[in-house]
């Protein structure tokens, strides 16, 4: 598992991905970790197949008992089917996930982990002195979906928005936006159901101060590429399968 530190300040953001041991037939995912002095938050911790490499990677940054928080942007298996395993490994942790998915996600088993339901209008996660904002992003693509914004690090973790599918050794940042577009187009057109939801989300996100836009698949967008992405997404017609 490749680890890339994407923010270093009073706390850290680390991106995990490009897992070389991953079976070929499952989708490649990026996991993000927010590390404060005594706590650790895993954003979209990934599928059950990814549990062992992910856990092993996190142990480079935090001991098991300091993994206190998990966040699931939505209910998809590539996001959180590892829940049942984290549930057995962690003794004192919370899962922050959309309220509407509680009854669904509990199918993965969530007994020792406390399920903290995120209401439709969003909320926050407090991690020691860091406060992360949970930004509603419903219907992008999941009907109950949140992104995580860190105003201090200026990072917006966007789940499946901005996703692309890449070779296992692809760089972690977009370096040629024009070339990257083709890797994103069909995914966004096919997976995102609502032009209206997209418009509302873009309006909201344009007002945020963002250095890095960090999706759950593919490459992150940095600097001007963030705006380029928003403009491109704005102009894209989605929900094409009907």
């Amino acid at each position: 598992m490749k680890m890339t530190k994407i923010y270093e300040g009073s706390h850290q953001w680390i991106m995990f991905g490009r897992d070389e041991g991953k079976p070929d037939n499952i989708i490649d995912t990026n996991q993000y970790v927010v590390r404060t002095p005594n706590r650790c938050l895993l954003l979209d911790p990934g599928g059950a197949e990814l549990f062992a490499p992910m856990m092993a990677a996190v142990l480079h940054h935090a001991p098991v008992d300091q993994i206190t928080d998990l966040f699931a942007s939505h209910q998809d298996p590539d996001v959180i089917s590892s829940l049942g395993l984290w549930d057995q490994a962690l003794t004192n942790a919370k899962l922050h996930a959309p309220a509407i998915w509680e009854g669904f996600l509990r199918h993965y088993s969530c007994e020792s982990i406390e399920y903290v339901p995120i209401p439709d209008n969003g909320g926050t996660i407090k991690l020691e002195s860091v406060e992360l904002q949970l930004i509603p992003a419903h219907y992008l693509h999941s009907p109950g979906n949140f992104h995580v914004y860190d105003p201090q690090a200026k990072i917006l973790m966007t789940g499946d928005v901005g996703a692309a599918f890449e070779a296992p050794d692809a760089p972690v940042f977009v370096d040629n936006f024009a070339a990257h577009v083709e890797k994103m187009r069909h995914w966004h057109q096919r997976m995102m159901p609502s032009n209206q939801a997209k418009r509302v989300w873009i309006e909201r996100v344009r007002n945020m101060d963002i250095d890095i836009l960090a999706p759950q698949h593919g490459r992150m967008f940095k600097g001007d590429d963030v705006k380029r992405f928003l403009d491109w997404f704005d102009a894209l017609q989605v929900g094409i399968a009907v």
Partner: protein
Amino acid sequence: MTNQTKSQFIAVASITSELSAVMVVAKEISLAAANAKAIAFRAGDKAKGFQPITDFINELAKETIELVTNINIYALVLYRLTVDEYQKTAAYNKFELAAKMAEGAVYAKSMQEPVDHARLSMQDCQRQFKRDVSQLLGQLEAVMHHARAARVIAANSRIEASQAGEYLQSLQAVAESVDKAAHTIHDNVQRCRIALSIYRNS
């Protein structure tokens, strides 16, 4: 899933299916008993010896149904345990793998506790499963006992039927059906026991 887990799932599932067949047959016996009672009543003195037997058959059928109902509840518990054990074993294996992959990581040692804990709860599950299997085998033994008793009664019924004059044939048919049912119960329960016996507490 390992072969061991697979066969455990199959063993537990087969109990439920064998037992539902036993249930059907036990109900047939109960029906045969009611039938026999009516015939014995009509036959009056000629089937005097047969009357207490019909009550006996009925009682036996009722007890078998009750036992099987209990065993079915038990089988469900056993199924849940099997699922639990499967999940705990999977977790333990993943934790061990994570610990191995984390070798050299700063906090690799912190994985030891979850690994130990997972191993213990997996072993707990295995022990519990063996204990429950032993109990279930005991209950199945009781059903076998009933089936054997039913066969003895069937044999007695035949003797009594032979003295029932014109009712001979219908009473013999009752005895026949009880015997056949007892046979089926015996065979099905025997299959359950064989499937489970490899998991019994040694």
